């Protein structure tokens, strides 16, 4: 169950794109701005962006799909990122992640059945001296153990 956000109109997308056109190299800022507004980069936006930048739709798709951050479909209401990088692994991040995915009944990048939580891997949050680390939306959490993760997940409504 994705976010109940109304489908954006072409007009709305055009406005967002126009706000970034003064930048040098505006494509990434545009994609970020579109995603900030709609929770994902809708297919309808690709043509509008391509036209504004005088590049092909395929090029916009190519750029968008290159980066892990940009979504084709909206995420759940909250995004839980669990660090999989080496420093967190040294503190047991692998086992924590495995148990979390099992609890949520989903794989990496999946969303819980109730639409509350999307869980994603992240390769380093810069919290390497207090791992395992996680981030719920933009809030960072360190020394995450099972109990802490359970609290985070229940706060997020999983």
């Amino acid at each position, binding site marked *: 169950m994705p976010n109940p956000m109304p489908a954006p109109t072409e007009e709305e997308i055009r406005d967002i794109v126009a706000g970034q056109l003064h930048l*040098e*190299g*505006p*494509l*990434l*800022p545009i*994609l*970020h701005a579109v995603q900030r507004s709609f929770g994902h980069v809708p297919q309808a936006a690709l043509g509008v962006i391509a036209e504004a*930048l005088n590049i092909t739709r395929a090029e916009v798709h*190519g*750029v968008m799909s*290159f*980066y*892990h*951050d*940009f979504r084709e479909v909206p995420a759940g209401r909250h995004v839980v990122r669990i660090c999989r*990088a*080496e*420093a*967190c*692994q*040294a*503190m047991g991040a692998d086992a924590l992640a495995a148990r979390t995915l099992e609890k949520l009944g989903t794989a990496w990048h999946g969303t819980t059945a109730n639409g509350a939580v999307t869980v994603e891997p*992240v*390769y*380093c*949050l*810069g*919290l*390497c*001296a*207090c*791992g395992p*680390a996680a*981030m719920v939306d*933009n*809030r*960072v*959490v*360190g*020394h995450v153990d099972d109990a802490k993760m359970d609290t985070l997940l229940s706060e997020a409504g999983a």
Partner: protein
Amino acid sequence: MRIWVPRDSAAKALGADAVAEAVAVEAAARGLDVQIVRNGTRGMIWLEPLVEVEQDGVRIGYGPVSPGDVPALLDGKMRSLGPVEDLDWMQRQDRLTFARVGVIDPLDLADYEAHGGLAGLRRAIAMTGAEIVAEVTGSGLRGRGGAGFPTGIKWNTVLNAEADRKYIVCNADEGDSGTFADRMIMEGDPFCLIEGMAIAGLGVGATRGYVYLRSEYPDAIAVMQAALRVARGAGVLGPDVLGSGTAFDMEIRVGAGAYVCGEETSLLNSMEGKRGVVRAKPPLPALEGFLGKPTVVNNVLSLATVPVIFEKGAAHYAGFGLGRSKGTMPIQIAGNVKRGGLFETGFGMPLGDLVNEVAGGTATGRPVKAVQVGGPLGAYFHPDQFDTPFGYEAFDRAGGLIGHAGVVVFDDSADLLKMARFAMEFCAVESCGKCTPCRIGAVRGVETIDRIAQGDADAIALLADLCETMKDGSLCALGGFTPFPVMSALERFPDDFGRQREAAE
């Protein structure tokens, strides 16, 4: 009374916001006149949230503090760590780049100036571009992002390039596991990076700067953006930098989760709105960089070290270090350690001293099995190699690299075959796809390590051969250096690669 509660992400991740709130509430309940300063972190992450209370002009530390400790803290009943500056961890360091981090309010420009800030920029304003570049060259500063290229030589190339527009680009795409120094600077002393970039601009004749900052650091993005507004308001940035008559302004560009964009040419492509694919060199970015213009691309730490070089002089900076590894290195101690955090010291400290004495061994109390230095592309070191002094050349000779100086410690429960497999898996996920040995080789690498795990001894020679191909046939460090963790794990921890085979026999 002033009380400091860090706003650094690591402190926040351990509950600093709740502690700051408790201090405000409890102080109000007691009718105390308390000024709460949200500083950066001192870098002693095992003590976070580390609260400091001013007593007779001395900052006394308490930590780790939980919200429940706050009443006792304010009533003077909590046991203190003593003056923070006198703690062994602080005393053993030479803090040049990190002198102000954890000390000042990151967004208070007056506090910044009171601690030596802007002195370097003022000195640079009185110099010519060539003199500025010569000062950096004289300091011996080398790129702190990993490659260790002399910063002054890079600047000189840009200085001598003829162009109508030049750029300063700060690489803040710090994606290496075990590293957080860039984040600490940006959250704890953002004006230092801004000042360094302004000096770089004056030096090479660039009027525009960008910080390419990874999206995984939302707190750093927010602090940097706020700092830019303050700096612009105070005339540190803008059409007339501190009355110099020279313009320099900058903006933040947020990355989008691609590790490879920490490589300078893919970073430039990303900034231009392209896929973050690596470019072949030449042309060097110093000659044809962002939008084809001469561009200085430097790491956060390199640029943030520039102000202190100008404040104290190149000779002062070059006086620290070992051989051609001059100055200090902010070493980040992470993973399974008793005391993790940031430790800035002159090059030359043996790896074992960092792990055993500074970090105090493992958090779990078990023996240290392996130490990965330099991020996911760095080699795994065996405790037998603990006498290796921390420096570019010494690590190169020992078959490794210092990279961005992240030190990740593993206890004896680590399985190095699994870590080697992870290195290949990570390379496969993050490869930009340009070079076949990296794009395909990393996938085959995972499969080959799986064969070894199943007891196929013939696959070991195949893995070594594959690593040679990746090393020789990749344009950038992602494909070229992934063999470091893989081969070091294989060669220095052979038991982990032979165990399953022996069990099968």
